[in-house]
């Protein structure tokens, strides 16, 4: 792996993101309605006022012109103004980034810490009670709807036991670290639960496959300890397919968890996306979608780089 390789990959992202932005822009504008339709309910907004607004937001221009203007401004860091709140888009988005990073980021780390050992445990204890129990939990995690689990945990922890707050990011007037962590606990757990379920299954099946390979048998035959075989020989090779899945999921850290954020009144990017979507707030939507696409492209690159770290046979030139 060389620096010039990374540079080439980064350069390749520009046309890719441009293409993505063109498609997103087109799809958004194909959807019925536009931002000014929110005024349709209001009898006192005259046609003249609507025309003024159209001009002010540049919505009167042909679509290709609008797109070209948007692209040039976007790459200069000028993300425009939200039609819904009249605030700069950059400000709106940046205001929500910390909350999303905190929730999705911590859930991601937690899921990783729990999922990999669980998967290995499940694979090495194949067809034992431990394996069946972990499998059962995984299937529960994959098939339980987020909103139902959230509701149950809220009832248990907030209403019955009064241990944790049911929603929000901080107690108003508090906002200290312990306070935020208390608020973070439930949504983080729920978000992590689903990931753990999926990732541990990948880890298990990948591990099972590797453990049946000839070289593992050879290592065992040569008298290498079982622990060493598992963690040194098998684990690294089993990680490669898991990394792909985990890396692609990690893009979601920046896109926000729409359902979890809504249920827990967590002020992140996922909720901003829903509100902007309902109002067809094009500038905010484009910014959010581009941030999400960028995260996805970058996590792909990171996954590729991680392969070569895990397995020296994989090289990029």
């Amino acid at each position, binding site marked *: 792996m060389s620096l010039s390789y990374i540079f080439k990959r980064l350069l390749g992202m520009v046309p890719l993101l441009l293409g993505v932005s063109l498609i997103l822009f087109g799809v958004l504008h194909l*959807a*019925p*309605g*536009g*931002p000014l*339709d*929110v*005024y*349709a*309910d*209001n*009898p*006192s*907004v*005259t046609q*003249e*006022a609507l025309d*003024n*607004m159209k001009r*002010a937001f540049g919505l009167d221009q042909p679509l290709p012109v609008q797109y070209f203007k948007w692209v040039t401004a976007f790459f200069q860091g000028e993300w425009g*103004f939200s039609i*819904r*709140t*009249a*605030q700069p888009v950059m400000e*709106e988005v940046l*205001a*929500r980034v910390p*909350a999303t990073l905190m929730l999705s980021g911590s859930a991601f780390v937690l899921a990783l810490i729990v999922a990999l050992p669980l998967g290995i445990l499940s694979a090495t204890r194949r067809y034992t009670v431990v394996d069946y129990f972990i499998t059962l939990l995984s299937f529960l995690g994959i098939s339980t709807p987020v*909103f139902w689990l959230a*509701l149950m945990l*809220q*009832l248990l922890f*907030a*209403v019955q036991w*009064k241990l944790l*707050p*049911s*929603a*929000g*990011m*901080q107690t*108003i*007037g508090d906002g200290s670290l312990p306070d935020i962590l208390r608020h973070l606990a439930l949504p983080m757990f729920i978000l992590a639960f689903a990931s753990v379920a999926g990732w541990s299954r990948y880890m298990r099946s990948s591990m099972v496959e590797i453990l049946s390979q000839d070289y593992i048998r050879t290592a065992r035959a040569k008298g290498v300890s079982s622990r060493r075989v598992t963690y040194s020989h098998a684990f690294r090779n089993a990680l490669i397919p898991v990394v792909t899945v985990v890396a692609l999921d990690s893009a979601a850290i920046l896109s926000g968890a729409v359902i979890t954020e*809504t*249920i*827990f*009144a967590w*002020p*992140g990017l996922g*909720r*901003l996306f829903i*509100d902007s*979507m*309902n*109002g*067809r707030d094009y500038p905010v939507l484009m910014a959010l979608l581009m941030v999400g696409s960028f995260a996805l492209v970058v996590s792909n690159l990171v996954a590729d780089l991680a392969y070569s770290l895990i397995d020296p046979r994989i090289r990029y030139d």
Partner: protein
Amino acid sequence: MGYQIQAAGSTRQKRLVLGLSAAILLSGMGLAQQRGGTLTVGLGYDIDTLNVYSTGFLGDVQAAVVEGLVAPNEKAEYVPVLATRVPTVQNGGIKVAADNKSMVVTYQLRPGVKWSDGKPFTSADVKFTWETVKDPKFIAESKDGTEDIASIQTPNDLTVVVNYKRVAPDFKSTLFTFGILPKHTLEGKDLNTDNYNQMPLGTGPFKVSQFVKGQYVVLDRNPYYWRKDKAGVQLPYLDKMIFKIIPDSNTLVTQLKSGEIQMAYSVPYSQIAQLDNQPGLNVVKNPVLSWQHLDFNLKGPAPLRDINVRKAMAHALDRTTISKALGGYPIPIDTVVVPVFSYSNKNVPKYPYDPAKARQLLDAAGYKVGSDGIRAKNGQRLSFNIMAQAGRSTDEDAQQVIIAQMKAIGIELKPDNKAGVALRDARYKGGYDLYYGGWITSADPSYSVFFGSKGVNNGQGYSNPKIDALLATADSSLDPAVRTKALRDFQTTLMQDLPSIPVTSNPSMIVVTDKLGGFVPNPTNMTNFVNTSGWYLKK
């Protein structure tokens, strides 16, 4: 004027400000009310801006901060707030020109009122409000009433003379009821981007001390508030009000149960049962000025233009069943004017539940039941799309009942639900066959927006010159007898034409801590927070 009801509590209309007097009377009666305390309220939507003129939602928070000259009370009657009286023809506050084509409204302002920064409130602020909202550069969600005003004179600090271009009986439900803008801080500023949108300055009982986007708004007591209770105690009683943004209605209920919030409104009917017997909470039923209706798109499929088909559907619709499916709270109605209004007409043509008659009507009109159970005539099947607001569970439940009831007479309805802008696009451009939804109005509604040929909310393509004439009379007369007659005749004609079937009037359910005293719900589109100064928490 009216607007469509949107997601729980996020009605797109906001009007008026402080209701007051009843709460003050109540609070003056006992000595029980305590000063101090914080009330935390859950809001089911994410606040876009705190500027009453720009927001896409009802101004809940704004109503506790910004006041208008008058406001509707709990009986939907206008009472004075920053004005000393509500102008009428009788008290000389309104003078209609001899040619009956214009009018002059004079407001006497309350002396001694201050903005929450301590600066005096004067007639210049009122004039400034009109000029600012009218300015085409200001991108407002609502400019109601600005176009009707020709000029404003301010002969002294406490007198405002408003010259209207037309006789406008609905003048109270617009501009100055909405809220007054402070001239001394906003003059020369760009209101589209000014910090006023996050921290509005008002004369109301509370002032904004913190607004954290996507999370909450904290209101503190306004030390300069002008109102005292009967015992001479400075209002408001509460120290603080906190509005927490909680978009999920299940979470809202959970927060009520766990005590994290003490009040929520527009709680879905399906969740009331689990809160009814919750100790420490009261459920308050607020009969709001709203009606649910099933609209026909008369520019849509041809059978919908056949009055027999519409009449048959009206007879096939069992309002009682719909009400039962929604917990029994909705009140069945026969006309679009809700019973609260004195001009609601009880003698309109009615379409009682009678599926046999519905079938007869369809048989007589030539719609025969086909092999699939659906009626058809000349190959045209009675199969339509029915649109409701996606995610609005109350409406979606009612929609299911309607689909089942229509199937019983051989009409097929297929749900086609939309949300947000897509819903409005379909509504106003006629992109639907049938639409089930609701309207909520101000205390002084104008029905021409919904049913006039050129009505901006008329996405049905409905047009009847007789209706237009009756509504024009109602919209331009200050004589209650003339208005009442015109509006009653309008209802009769409308129910003969049946462009829309009135279904139920749905009350709004408010759940609130039993410690809150002085709370009076408001049925108008002004929100329940129009009279917060008299609210108090029992210790």
